């Protein structure tokens, strides 16, 4: 009997564990180690953050789902990996620390035959003074990265709406809280939902709404921008995004590295090296992401963290980490099997794997401050990676000598539906598809993408899709009937 341990019960980890159990049955063991007791459909946090949904609608408890599926669930966080075992034993193991109310802080060694790291991002609020600290989000801004954060954001937004109703003008600042952030899409989506909410509340004219981003142009999205096939043009996502902001009378600040947050004010450095300030009454700033900060140890106890992990804490996989300058980057730099090159029974999926480099062109201010979006690893690719590594591991358990499945961001597309206001008949959303995620300028000269697979549009239909995805993916994650038929 083999044991597969999955670290992380989010999009990639939950997909990996549930498919693994389905494919392996009771002949092998699947264990999930994750500190959260609830599963969260993160994309709908945006709606929680404007009061359009309750926290309870976007989460559900994991324990009953794993019990039903026959998955061994440990509510704990993994803290260290010992891929060679320890003195006297060659069996690899991870060290876990329980977060479960019944045994908080208790540690345990958990052995594995195969290990998937799907621990997603550490929300690195501490990277920007005032944005937060090692304990998480600070007091000056709000976030929508977790359901709890989003609930708090909605309450703060409501306070601003009340003030505007009393005649007080308010400034809303939404965007990225550091020069090295990813996940611009979430901030993009949130700003449109805030604008929609203010309009519905009848206070839009009392609000100035500003987007602040580390992108050098609107619509970069950490992917170097996209060209959509639209109305007979190959239209840049720059025009698409600018149009959305301009239509709604929203301002934007580009190429900004927020370097300090204080009560009602951010300080930022721009790509041209200038330092500036922006005041706000309400700010939602996405933190930069880092790996969750594992340690790794060899059999003799020596620290081998740098063998398994890149300096940013993400796990090394079969990527080309020596690609050099932007001009030399190739789609083949991107990992395919997501297998760790040193320890072949360890894989990473979702945000947890270390990308070989950025997708957007690296940029820095004359002061040497890097200001560029880092590569996005959104829900669809994360789930696809989770499934692909699981299928490889299942085949390896059954005797395959090496991984049999791939999930490469240079060979897969992504669909992203960014809500711009909720409502069955007056909601809208931007539906974007991009293929491939990592541009391939050799195959698709000029744009790097297949224009037949890269599209964008705004409308009610996209909102319906977004709404249906909410229910469908929660249905799937709860392993309700037919869940395996729902694609990632």
């Amino acid at each position, binding site marked *: 009997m083999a044991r597969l341990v999955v670290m992380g019960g989010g999009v990639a980890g939950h997909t990996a564990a549930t498919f693994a159990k389905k494919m392996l049955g009771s002949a092998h063991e699947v264990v999930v180690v994750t500190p959260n007791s609830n599963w969260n459909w993160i994309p709908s946090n945006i709606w929680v953050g404007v009061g359009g949904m309750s926290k309870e609608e976007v989460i559900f408890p994991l324990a009953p789902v794993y019990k039903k599926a026959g998955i061994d669930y440990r509510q704990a966080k993994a803290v260290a990996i010992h891929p060679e075992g320890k003195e006297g034993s060659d069996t690899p193991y991870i060290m876990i620390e329980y977060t479960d109310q019944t045994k908080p802080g208790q540690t345990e060694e958990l052995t594995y035959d195969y290990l998937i790291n799907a621990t997603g991002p550490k929300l690195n609020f501490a990277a920007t003074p005032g944005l937060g600290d090692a304990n998480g989000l600070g007091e000056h801004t709000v976030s929508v990265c977790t359901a709890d954060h989003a609930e708090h954001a909605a309450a703060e937004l409501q306070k601003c709406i009340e003030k505007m109703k009393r005649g007080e003008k308010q400034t809303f600042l939404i965007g990225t809280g550091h020069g090295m952030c990813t996940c611009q899409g979430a901030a993009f989506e949130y700003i449109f939902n805030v604008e929609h909410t203010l309009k519905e509340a009848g206070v839009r004219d009392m609000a100035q709404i500003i987007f602040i981003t580390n992108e050098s142009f609107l619509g970069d999205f950490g992917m170097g921008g996209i060209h959509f096939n639209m109305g007979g043009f190959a239209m840049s996502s720059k025009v698409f995004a*600018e149009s959305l902001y301009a*239509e709604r009378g929203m301002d934007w600040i580009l190429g900004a590295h927020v370097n300090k947050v204080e009560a009602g004010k951010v300080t930022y450095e721009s790509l041209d090296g200038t330092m500036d300030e922006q005041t706000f009454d309400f700010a939602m700033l996405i933190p930069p992401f880092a790996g969750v900060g594992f340690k790794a140890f060899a059999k003799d106890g020596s620290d081998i963290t740098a063998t398994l992990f890149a300096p940013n804490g993400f796990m090394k996989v079969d990527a080309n980490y020596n690609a050099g300058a932007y001009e030399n980057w190739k789609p083949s730099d991107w990992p395919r099997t997501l297998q760790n090159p040193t320890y072949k029974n360890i894989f990473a999926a979702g945000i947890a794997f270390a990308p070989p480099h950025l997708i957007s062109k690296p940029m820095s201010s004359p002061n040497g401050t890097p200001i560029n979006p880092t590569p996005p690893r959104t829900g669809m690719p994360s789930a696809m990676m989770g499934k692909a590594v699981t299928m490889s591991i299942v085949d390896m358990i059954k005797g395959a000598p090496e991984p049999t499945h791939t999930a490469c961001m240079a060979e897969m*597309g992504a669909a992203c539906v960014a809500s711009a206001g909720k409502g069955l008949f007056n909601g809208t959303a931007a539906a974007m598809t991009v293929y491939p995620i990592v541009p391939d300028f050799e195959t698709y000269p000029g744009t790097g993408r297949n224009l037949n697979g890269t599209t964008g549009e705004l409308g009610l239909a996209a909102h319906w899709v977004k709404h249906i995805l909410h229910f469908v993916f929660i249905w799937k994650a709860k392993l309700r009937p037919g869940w395996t038929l729902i694609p990632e």
Partner: protein
Amino acid sequence: MASKHLQHIDPYTPQFGTMIPLGFQKWLRTCVIYQLFRFVMINLKMTVLILKSHH
């Protein structure tokens, strides 16, 4: 009536340098019949994308 959709735009601002949807385009975005058609199209596009992406 195009002016209604443009009155918040000032010359030489960043907003001035992009396209602004006018009435018909905005109407289409919430026109249920047209959006039902778009709904089918978006789903088709996403299905093709998913099929192309699994290896």
